[in-house]
């Protein structure tokens, strides 16, 4: 790797050794000055297109709909179109309704506003909210199942923390409890378990990718959230690999307890994503089958503990490591539920999920390397029955337990 870099550098033209002079600074700034001039010209002349006489382009993003109390509906809206929007009237279930809008009913590009509607919403029923603009364009928001939004108080904080504990900390800890059994495994057994870890991580990455895209659809179009996902994933992988290389120069390839921590971190970000999904489902009233949803996620996440424990089998780490690993991988679910239920933001959720995908991909690379090295040491090809079987089993277990989360 280093050699290649060196060669590439040599092929570049030799630096002339000249320092910046007045001329070179002017030459550096010239294109920028010209660009500013061209932009000014375009603005001044409308790029030769003449005055735009078409109706304004109106698009509205509705990141949040809440039911803070009986008889009250609240909406957050963001103007993500190029032109200002004036919200003239509001309808609930095809009936014009009284409302207030703060700070005002005209929204410039990327401005946001809060609409409050005194409406006697009916528990467990669907409600549709329409906003009609000055020009008669209609924007729609949906409440699939009307349930009062969680209140931000100590009781709900505790309740949601418990939910996060059930879906995050408990299953990961239970999975880690297989550690003693895993120590009895032979080399082939270990290959199987490590490959299983890769399988489940790959599944989680795909799972998060789907989730991220779903959430990204709710982000104001101007932010281009769907493109943000691959960009952040690549950046995260590259950054973590950079950090990994810096560490590895001293300690060699990732393995053992440090690798377990890496896996736990990736899984932690994933579980935070799950927490967000659960919290948001509660907030949106979609979690009518709340208990079933929690059971599903709990079962789904047990395998994650196995994945974290796998690379440490030969290390005999101190028990505090297990507690810490369980917290790193599981506790973010609690934070996720809180965020999802109280301050859900599609944009930030997309960002977190994308970073999580990057972290998991980086861990997949490290664990795969570990398997590859073990296989080479045993003079075996990378794909043997134990590694293939483990990989397939990891994917299969995650897929099958995911069926339980039929939210």
């Amino acid at each position: 790797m280093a050699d290649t870099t060196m060669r590439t550098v040599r092929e570049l033209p030799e630096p002339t050794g000249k320092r910046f002079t007045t001329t070179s600074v002017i030459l550096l700034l010239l294109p920028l000055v010209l660009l500013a001039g061209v932009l000014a010209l375009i603005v001044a002349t409308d790029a030769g297109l003449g005055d735009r006489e078409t109706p304004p382009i109106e698009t509205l993003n509705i990141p949040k709909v809440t039911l803070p109390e009986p008889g009250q509906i609240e909406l957050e809206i963001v103007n993500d179109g190029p032109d200002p929007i004036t919200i003239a009237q509001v309808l609930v279930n095809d009936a014009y309704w009284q409302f207030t809008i703060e700070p005002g009913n005209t929204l410039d590009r990327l401005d946001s506003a809060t609409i409050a509607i005194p409406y006697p919403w009916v528990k467990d029923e669907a409600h549709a909210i329409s906003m009609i603009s000055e020009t008669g364009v209609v924007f729609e928001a949906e409440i699939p199942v009307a349930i009062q939004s969680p209140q931000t108080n100590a009781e709900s904080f505790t309740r949601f923390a418990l939910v996060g504990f059930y879906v995050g900390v408990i299953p990961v800890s239970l999975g880690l409890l297989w550690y003693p059994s895993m120590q009895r495994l032979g080399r082939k057994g270990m290959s199987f378990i490590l490959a299983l870890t890769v399988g489940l991580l790959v599944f989680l990455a795909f799972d998060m990718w789907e989730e991220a895209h779903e959430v990204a659809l709710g982000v104001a179009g101007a932010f281009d959230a769907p493109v943000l996902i691959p960009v952040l994933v690549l950046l995260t992988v590259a950054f973590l690999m950079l950090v990994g290389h810096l560490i590895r120069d001293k300690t060699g390839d990732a393995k053992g307890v440090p690798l377990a921590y890496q896996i736990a971190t990736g899984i932690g970000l994933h579980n935070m994503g799950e927490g967000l999904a659960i919290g948001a489902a509660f907030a949106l009233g979609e979690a009518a089958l709340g208990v079933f949803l929690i059971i599903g996620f709990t079962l789904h996440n047990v395998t994650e503990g196995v994945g974290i424990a796998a690379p440490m089998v030969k290390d005999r780490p101190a028990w505090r490591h297990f507690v810490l690993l369980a917290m790193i991988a599981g506790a973010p679910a609690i934070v996720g539920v809180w965020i999802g239920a109280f301050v859900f933001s599609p944009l930030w959720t997309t960002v977190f999920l994308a970073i999580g995908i990057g972290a998991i991909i980086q861990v997949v690379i490290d664990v795969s390397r570990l398997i590859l090295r073990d296989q080479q040491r045993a003079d075996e090809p990378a794909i043997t029955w134990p590694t293939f079987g483990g990989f397939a089993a990891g994917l299969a277990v995650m897929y099958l337990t995911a069926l339980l989360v039929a939210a």
Partner: protein
Amino acid sequence: MSRNRMNRRTLLTAGATGGALAGVSTLPFLFAQGTPPPEHPEHDPAATPTEHGGHFLSSTVGDIDVERLGWDPSEFVSSFDYGEATTMQDGNVVREWRIVAVEREIEIAPGVFFPAWTYNGQVPGPTLRANEGERLRIHFVNGSTHPHTMHFHGLHSAYHDGVTGIGRGDILPGESHTYEFNAEPFGCHLYHCHSTPLKRHIHKGLYGTFIINPDPAIRGDLARSRHPDSPDSSEWQEFVMMMNAFDTTFDGENEVYALNTVAFHYMKHPIVIDRTRPVRIYLVNITEFDPINSFHLHANFFNYFDTGTTLDPTLRTVDTIMQVQAQRGILEFSYANHEPGLYMFHAHVSEFAELGWMSVFDVR
């Protein structure tokens, strides 16, 4: 827009203070800004607080800018345009109107603007009214950018039918035409543009009511109350109401329903009725996209004359009638035995009611 917000604040303040008042009696209080609530000793204000401790109002917020609109729906509802009448040497009357088709934006709900096609800049167009047997000449000028016509529901020649491709056909932008025919049969009729595509030319706003008064000399005493020359008619309080709707998103479904164009206008500005005098309504359904519309009167019953072409009611003692598009009729009723108050009337298609076709009479 600041005007709207101002109005909304006023409304909400009124809503908060009036929250404990009972039922319908608070509606005008909320809508009629600046008017104090009527004294009503029989109702204890605190007696029937509604559920959730407040009122839930299905209505638009704010009010339209009547000056900007160019006509006032509260005046339109009782305006009848008799045009210019000339009595010829043979004693026959020729009645003439000048109608110009123009395009303009109209405010159909507070803050919601619709790019309308109009007759004389208003929707509905002027209510043309004539007496049975007169010669009518409607000088039509197309001042818009699309071909238009005036198609009258009445008796006339094919040449003056006002339909694309038939007789005089489309009147192109800048062109004009005089539609000419006799005023017959008597009744409650309508006119509208019949250019193609028909749906668009109607729902964009090219329509109006066309009334022909029965001649008592031919039809007998029963016709007297419907003829302006007879003193009997002055006793009546007459109104014209077109049930119309607007598709602001152009998807073939209406976003706003109304009586005479502006959603909830007669909720915010109740139509004042003198209960000692009888009421007659010329009602026309011109709603596009929906198969029927309806009219329901609260706390009262009326006689109904379908199409208004008879002097005997076609339906007696009803409180709800339905009309298909272009169906129309005359409603006659009285509040003589009612106590004063606010009496609602609205489409008994609840959806239309909540989308704007809801009104009240302020019976005094």
